[in-house]
């Protein structure tokens, strides 16, 4: 997910159908492209014009056209309840609350009456500029800021019109207040939204609806607002896909090939079939052209027990070993690759007074969301219902339809809560959804007429691929005699995330995947004579975006090197950064100033502690962390994290604090522990025992500070991740003098 995707429009859905189909069969291809044509709907977006509405106390701003039918997004009950349909996935980031707040602000309703629910998969719910219904790129609020507020404003106008009609007065004589429509003067009549809703929603949506222009008029936006999905999540009643209950529901687990793309060659299922509760054992096509074996049973336990009793001979492709892969990447990094940025003099580093040569390595990382992958499919003759917590609803819809041999409109995707995702549930191949559909199809063929829930064990999930790619960076920095940058040569080696997918044509430019260079190519620092190039080796390990994508590694390289340069220049790390940030980067400067003040940077660090800073821009926001660490017995302990973020208008400060904490913890787990390795194509980790994550006893004291802003909101879910690992590394360097360049950190190495 990337801002370049804004060019994509509906092309993603179109190419998804075709790209995917091309890899299937000609028959499927024809079907899919035909479907893509039929599935394409109106391109919808908000015009940039800025007419003014000007009506009553509801101050107007840049009025946007209202092409979104409010009835598709808001349901007003006769009990005055307001249900907002959320076109994103609620997987922790708080969209049920913050997106409902956007509607409520311009609908002028009573917040205590507001509920939220997931929208179904449909083109009307597509991202306003990406053309697919998706959750990612920390875009939920920024992409809904105009859209959801305009929908709220439109619905409000419709309620006013309904009242005007009923009362026989002009709309000019009607205002609203917190869920009530009120007649000004005259008979001073009042009616609740609930009493007018039915009449209102039958009216045509207004062509224009103004949203509040002056942040001073905000009554909900900007107020710390508690989540509206808390009660169900603390009493066990919130429904995740894995919790779905259906009459006759079967549970399947799949034995997948131990090397990606492997195929079952010979199967002995006799013992497995003898397990009580087992219904069938069926070969099934799995991701990347592989063939696995599905065990269908009454429940997860018998299915899992039976799977353990299968004897399978596999035909496997040659598998990679990450230690060898790393050695090859290191070799590659010695020479320039495809150019991504070429500026000034390529020999500047060689001519510089001093230089820093550094190599960095980053492992594959699993997303390891708490809810293991799963998907529920009810396949009927002419229709199919799929329940999953997906970040890519319409992508899944198209690919599920292809896999089932149905049309897109015959597939209903029911979005449930998801127990985390972090990018794993936004798969251009829809791997776990397509596989579940294939299991359902095999069951149908075998005469088993029942819906099925495919559950991945933790090991299945962790070994199942789609990792943050492994990377090597090699950088040579030339410094002048004052320690200021004079030249920069940078080579990055890593698999492209989007090559070969429907996203390639939007995200690969001149052979360079922009999701790998983001954070370097657009560095805010004045770095003269920058030469950046990349290598994209082809490796048989599926890779994917992982919370903050390319920034997971680029921020580390840039922010630890800047720190090292500051040390070489004998300058304060924040002062050095400020010296390299020009007036175009006022947000970076403001974030650094805030984190400096709140962390007590100018006082010395507590005795025995090292202090480090890092700042990084991603997903439109700028975030900085100052951390204090101690190192004891080669063990790094992070005691305190002070964070500052500029994310434009802070829609819900409570959510922003939670997301910055969350992103920090996620990045800290990776920095301290995260590592997926392969030996002969087999993933060596499988559970939280060998892929540890940060627990409560390692949670630092943390404070999050938001730079006040009235600009449009920018990303919040991811920007807290990139700067944490470099801040910790810089703090370790301050404490020990040792520069950490290999992730995860290993002080014993």
């Amino acid at each position: 997910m990337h801002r370049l995707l804004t060019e994509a429009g509906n092309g993603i859905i179109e190419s998804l159908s075709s790209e995917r189909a091309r890899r299937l069969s000609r028959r499927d291809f024809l079907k899919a492209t035909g479907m893509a044509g039929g599935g394409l709907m109106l391109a919808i977006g908000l015009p940039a014009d800025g007419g003014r509405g000007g009506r009553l106390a509801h101050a107007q701003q840049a009025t946007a056209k209202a092409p979104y039918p409010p009835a598709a997004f808001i349901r007003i009950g006769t009990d005055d309840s307001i249900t907002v349909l959320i076109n994103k996935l609620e997987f922790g980031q708080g969209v049920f609350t913050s997106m409902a707040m956007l509607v409520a602000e311009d609908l002028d309703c009573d917040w205590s009456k507001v509920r939220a629910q997931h929208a179904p998969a449909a083109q009307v719910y597509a991202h306003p500029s990406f053309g697919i219904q998706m959750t990612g790129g920390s875009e939920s609020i920024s992409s809904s800021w105009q859209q959801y507020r305009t929908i709220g404003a439109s619905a409000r106008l419709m309620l006013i019109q309904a009242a005007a009609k009923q009362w026989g007065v002009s709309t000019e004589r009607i205002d609203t207040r917190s869920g009530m429509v009120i007649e000004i003067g005259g008979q001073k009549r009042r009616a609740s939204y609930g009493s007018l809703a039915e009449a209102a929603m039958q009216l045509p949506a207004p062509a224009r609806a103004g949203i509040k222009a002056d942040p001073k008029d905000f009554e909900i936006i900007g107020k710390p607002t508690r989540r509206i999905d808390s009660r169900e999540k603390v009493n066990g009643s919130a429904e995740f896909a894995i919790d779905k209950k259906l009459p006759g529901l079967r549970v399947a687990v799949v034995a997948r090939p131990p090397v990606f793309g492997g195929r079952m060659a010979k199967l002995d299922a006799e013992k497995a079939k003898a397990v009580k509760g087992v219904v069938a054992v069926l070969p099934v096509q799995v991701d990347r052209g592989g063939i696995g074996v599905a065990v269908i049973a009454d429940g997860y336990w018998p299915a899992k027990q039976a799977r353990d009793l299968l004897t399978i001979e596999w035909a496997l492709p040659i598998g990679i070993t990450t230690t060898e892969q790393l050695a090859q990447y290191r070799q590659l990094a010695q020479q320039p690759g495809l150019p991504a940025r070429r500026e000034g003099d390529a020999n500047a580093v060689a001519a510089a007074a001093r230089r820093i040569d550094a190599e960095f390595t980053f492992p594959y990382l699993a997303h390891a969301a708490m809810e293991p992958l799963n998907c529920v499919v009810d396949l009927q003759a002419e229709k199919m219902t799929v329940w999953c917590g997906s970040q890519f609803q319409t992508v899944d819809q198209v690919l599920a339809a292809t896999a089932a041999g149905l049309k897109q409109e015959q597939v209903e995707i029911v979005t449930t809560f998801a127990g985390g995702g972090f990018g794993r549930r936004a798969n251009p191949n829809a791997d776990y959804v397509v596989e579940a559909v294939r299991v359902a199809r095999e069951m149908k063929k075998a005469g088993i007429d029942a819906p099925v829930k495919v559950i991945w064990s933790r090991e299945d999930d962790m070994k199942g691929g789609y990792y943050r790619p492994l990377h090597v960076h090699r950088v040579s920095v030339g410094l002048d005699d004052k320690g200021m940058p004079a030249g920069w040569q940078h080579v990055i080696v890593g698999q492209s995330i989007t090559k070969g997918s429907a996203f390639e044509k939007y995200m690969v430019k001149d052979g360079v995947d922009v999701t790998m260079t983001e954070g370097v190519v657009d560095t805010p620092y004045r770095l003269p004579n920058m030469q950046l190039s990349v290598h994209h080796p082809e490796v048989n390990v599926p890779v994917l975006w992982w919370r903050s994508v390319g920034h997971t590694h680029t921020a580390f390289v840039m922010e630890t090197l800047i720190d090292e340069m500051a040390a070489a220049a004998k300058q304060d790390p924040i002062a050095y950064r400020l010296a390299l940030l020009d007036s175009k980067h006022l947000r970076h400067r403001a974030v650094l100033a805030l984190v400096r003040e709140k962390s007590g940077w100018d006082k010395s660090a507590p005795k025995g502690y090292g202090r480090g800073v890092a700042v990084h821009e991603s997903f439109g926001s700028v975030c900085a962390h100052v951390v204090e660490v101690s190192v004891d017995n080669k063990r790094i302990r992070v005691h305190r994290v002070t964070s500052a973020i500029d994310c434009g208008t802070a829609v819900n400060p409570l959510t922003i604090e939670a997301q910055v904490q969350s992103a920090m913890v996620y990045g800290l787990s990776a920095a301290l522990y995260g590592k997926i390795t392969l030996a002969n194509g087999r993933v060596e980790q499988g559970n939280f025992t060998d892929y540890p994550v940060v627990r409560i006893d390692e949670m630092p004291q943390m404070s999050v500070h938001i730079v006040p802003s009235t600009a449009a909101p920018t990303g919040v879910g991811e920007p807290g991740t990139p700067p944490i690992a470099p801040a910790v590394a810089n703090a370790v360097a301050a404490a020990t003098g040792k520069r950490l360049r290999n992730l995860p950190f290993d002080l014993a190495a």
Partner: protein
Amino acid sequence: MIELNINGRAMTVDADPSTPLLWALRDDLGLTGTKFGCGIAACGACTVHVDGQPKRACVTPVSSVVGARITTIEAMETDRVGRAVQDAWIRNDVVQCGYCQSGQVMAATALLKDKKNPSDRDIDEAMTGIACRCGTYARIRAAIKDAAKSLG
């Protein structure tokens, strides 16, 4: 047939005695509030109370809890301490994705039943077994202290 005492009621499950309590709860009894996270007692999402003690249901065979008092997240709203923990969770806006929170609430409730005013170290000991990938730890700690205060 195996008879179990769950949330004060006698319930029967038709399952192999080695079946983990987790799957008896989820697949046989429809009590899906208890979550599957790792299957090896490494994440704590499946935490329930067995005779008042926190237990990982994913590695607890049903045969081992016959005759014991089993309590799940579904019973916490009517439990004085459980309800106080849930309310504190909401006041402190703890949850994010919510998937691990049944386990967090069960572990915190067991802690507060055992210790009225837990120290930070007590909290670490009781809660470190429950992983949260959303990183809700800071608010969990605050909510446990808040719940302790509300219980007096």
